[in-house]
């Protein structure tokens, strides 16, 4: 079982390196995960995406598709990739403390 030390706590990770238990997540952990991924500061726009993803996940059990994310969050595709340059599927869901999205779109 992969684990990670974040802010003095040992946190379990899944096979993709995402948090195993959504309950372990909080905003400080998100900041640490972001820094590890090369995003030094989470702006309001990052939080908009992260919070939208978390809300969708809680309601539907999976992260939203990029299409829904961009249509409904107010962050368009170009900006989304500027915010999460290494890929929104890989990065945004990880920082949001969610498993990797199951969808292909």
């Amino acid at each position, binding site marked *: 079982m992969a684990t990670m030390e974040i802010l003095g706590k040992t946190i379990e990770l899944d096979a993709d390196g995402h948090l195993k238990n959504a309950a372990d997540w909080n905003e400080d952990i998100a900041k640490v995960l972001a820094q590890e991924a090369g995003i030094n500061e989470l702006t309001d726009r990052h939080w908009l995406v992260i919070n939208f993803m978390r809300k969708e996940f809680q309601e539907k059990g999976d992260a939203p598709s*990029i299409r829904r994310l961009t249509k409904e969050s107010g962050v368009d595709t170009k900006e989304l990739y500027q915010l999460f340059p290494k890929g929104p599927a890989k990065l945004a869901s990880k920082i949001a403390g969610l498993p990797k999205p199951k969808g292909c*779109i």
Partner: protein
Amino acid sequence: MSNQSEEIKKISVIISRGSLDGVYPGLILSNGARMEGIEANLFFTFFGMDAIIDKRMDNLSISTVGNAAMRLPWGQKMPTLLGILPGMASFATMMMKKEMEKLDVPPVREFLQMIKDAGAGIYACKLAMDMFHLEKKDLWEGVDDILTVGDFYQKSAGGLVLFT
């Protein structure tokens, strides 16, 4: 964690067919690559050009003729001879578009815009342009450039090439 050196960093997807089912796999692969942070370039050639010809890209269809995997809505295999009946291709196309919309797969034009906005390059094949007597103005406005085979290999350097 997989070994860093085994990770795919870059792909070039060639789309050579112009039916709906010929075009979508390449679009899905490219978009999926960008979602994972993989660099992606798309090259349209031969009948795949239809997907980037402005007047045609919204009207791609499925071919019901000679498609041995075609099924009727209730799951039974469709005798290939039925594929020639008037309306069959448009019916099959409508059904597939409906199913894709349910899965949040965008129509071709919107999908290409999404892939372009995600940072992928969209290219047309020079030979196909000449062969079909096409000009730049016939193409979708999002096409970045028209390339020769040599240009294509330069753009694809260091990545995987996927032919669809």
